[in-house]
């Protein structure tokens, strides 16, 4: 299979046991032939033992022992399939409110989110929750799959009713690109193949949408940011004085000859070369990994950022952010956490909780200021030293951070800078 020029698309699916999410993923994997005979045989035998009729497509997405026993998804599971047009990574996340943190995790790297709505029930709390998280995490594309169309006689009216409900509540959200699709995951209508049962629907089936959707603009190509991960000093023949700064371009484009500023020190220099093992590059753009050398000898280390002199991020010790609390142990007031932001690590404090958001109703709560598992809140952060930040809306890499509890080393919260 030659698909060498094809892009990688990451999408997330969120849903509960009943809305057919697992069946939809099973259907995509099955119809795109990503399921092997031994996997099919294993699922067939499990289906039989559990007394299910036929093959339960949903079983393909079960992973851990507890999940198989309880028939639920606990943790994010990653699935892969490839078509002649693209490679896909599915972050399959549980949709229940208890698992908000997993939805947030799956959404953080996604180009697209699939939101499933049961055509019989229309928009429910859970739909609003998923849409909210997709908008909070700035997933560039939203695909609302109105599922179980077979149970509403493939009715166009039923489809439009759900579509209208969605439009109404989602006007409050910040979403760039929303598409709607009437499907039946169980029967395969409009999943891989166009449905013959819904001639009134003119749009493309789900897989075609995923294969052709424009994603090369999903990454910011304007603001050039290069967080330094580590310094490369070969100290071997031919490279005695070599000093390269290794990292992954977070956004924008760098070229040899570019005037750059090293932050936070503020020193300026010019890019001499952009090196890879295959040879020097004429340009490096996000999300490429590369090694940059400069014309001047400057002290640069991990945590510094190379940016273009005419376009710098903000250097600040205080900023507002949306925070999702990820840990069982609630937040501790006035406690210092370790903050990881790009390759930089500092200490930080949640200075103030401005309000919490009810992710089902989008209502703000200014009374209750304690952060516990799955809470989402607007906060003020103060750090011991300046961070080099952009707004999350403009830059998912330089606009995001996590907090770590120094007592346990656990990742306790994830933040998006406003």
């Amino acid at each position, binding site marked *: 299979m030659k698909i060498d020029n094809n892009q*990688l698309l990451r999408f997330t699916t969120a849903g509960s046991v009943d809305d057919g999410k697992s069946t939809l993923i099973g259907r995509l994997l099955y119809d795109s032939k990503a399921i092997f005979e031994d996997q099919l045989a294993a699922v067939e035998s499990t289906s039989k033992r559990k007394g299910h009729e036929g093959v339960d497509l949903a079983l393909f997405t079960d992973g851990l022992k507890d999940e198989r026993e309880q028939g639920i998804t606990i943790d994010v599971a990653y699935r892969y399939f490839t078509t002649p047009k693209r490679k896909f990574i599915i972050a399959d996340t549980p949709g229940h409110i208890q698992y908000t943190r*997993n939805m947030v995790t799956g959404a953080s790297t996604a180009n697209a989110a699939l939101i499933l709505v049961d055509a019989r029930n229309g928009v429910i709390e859970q739909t609003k929750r998923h849409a909210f998280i997709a908008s909070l995490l700035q997933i560039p594309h939203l695909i609302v799959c109105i599922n179980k169309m077979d149970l509403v006689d493939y009715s166009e009216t039923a489809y439009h009713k759900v579509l209208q409900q969605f439009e109404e509540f989602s006007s409050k959200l910040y979403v760039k690109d929303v598409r709607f699709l009437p499907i039946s995951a169980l029967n395969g209508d409009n999943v891989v193949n166009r449905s013959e049962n819904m001639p009134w629907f003119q749009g493309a089936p789900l897989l075609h949408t995923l294969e052709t959707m424009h994603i090369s603009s999903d990454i910011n190509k304007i603001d050039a940011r290069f967080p330094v*991960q580590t310094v490369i000093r070969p100290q071997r023949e031919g490279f005695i004085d070599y000093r390269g700064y290794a990292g*992954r371009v977070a956004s924008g*484009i760098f070229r040899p000859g570019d005037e750059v500023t090293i932050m936070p020190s503020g020193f300026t220099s010019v890019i001499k070369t952009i090196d890879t093992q295959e040879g020097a590059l004429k340009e490096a753009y996000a999300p490429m990994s590369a090694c940059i050398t400069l014309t001047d000898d400057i002290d640069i280390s991990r945590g510094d950022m190379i940016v273009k002199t005419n376009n710098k991020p903000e250097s600040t010790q205080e900023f507002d952010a949306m925070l999702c609390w990820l840990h069982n142990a609630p937040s501790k007031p006035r406690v210092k956490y370790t903050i990881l932001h790009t390759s930089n690590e500092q200490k930080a404090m949640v200075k103030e909780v401005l309000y919490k958001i009810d992710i089902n109703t989008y209502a703000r709560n200014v009374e209750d200021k304690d952060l516990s598992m799955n809470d989402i809140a607007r906060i003020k952060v103060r750090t011991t030293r300046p961070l080099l930040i952009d707004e999350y809306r403009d830059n998912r890499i330089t606009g995001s951070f996590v907090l770590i509890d120094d007592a346990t080393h656990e990742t306790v919260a994830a933040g998006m800078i406003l």
Partner: protein
Amino acid sequence: MSKYYLNYLDELESEAIYILREVWAQFENPVILFSGGKDSILVTHLAKKAFYPAKIPFPLMHVDTGHNFPETIQFRDDLIDELGVQLIVGSVQESIDQGRVAEERGKNATRNALQITTLLDAIESNNIDCAIGGGRRDEEKARAKERFFSHRDDFGQWDPKNQRPELWNILNGKHFEGEHFRAFPISNWTEMDVWNYIQRENIAIPSLYFAHEREVVWRSNSWIPMSSFLKLEEGEEVVKKKIRFRTLGDITITGGIESDADTLEKIAVEVSAMKQTERGNRSDDKRSETAMEDRKRQGYF
């Protein structure tokens, strides 16, 4: 006019290089777990790229079951010479001789599970705080839940229900003394991606992956290579077949498939038409539905 997006193999490569550099930046004493199989060869190849023009700044570690394909050991030693890096060997035979573990008994006895003790001992005695592996999420259902940076407690155990969330590209490798991490830079690669990349980069792999004539025995639905470690059961006979291996592990349990694919191009074509997963020929995974999860919890690769 240039395009400003990566194709999927370049994006996977860039992600893996990013993770390898994070390992180097966040840990004191990492190693690459090297089995001689294609996945660990790929990780080593990516590490070479990640630190170019410097050498790979950490050792390779081989957990040697003693039941090796001779070709694998030769390949390993040649690669070490070429890279100029240190090799650490953890020996299952030594663990047995020291009474740390006992050989399994019974018909399908293997040294597969014994590797866990040897691996954890080697990690402890060499003060390793991060072991980089070639595990992929598409391999097995328990591995689908694995993080890029995966925490192990001071007993080397994995707690799949209590994993640190990983968001964006931020990796948290913080740990207490005695704990260690496993890092999986090629988590997002599938078997097909690995073969497409090996072909594109023309990476050297052991001859065992290419179709060759070999003496084999039909057992557990696959062709098990004849070796001095294999005890023939009644009714089993040694035959000569043209086979190749999809994965390489302990010689006593790694089954080959009949194949004519003797070039990387032919292998890629063959793999894309495969109807069985690559671990389908590994009898260690067939023991129960959650065999891999159970072993991983204890500290397996």
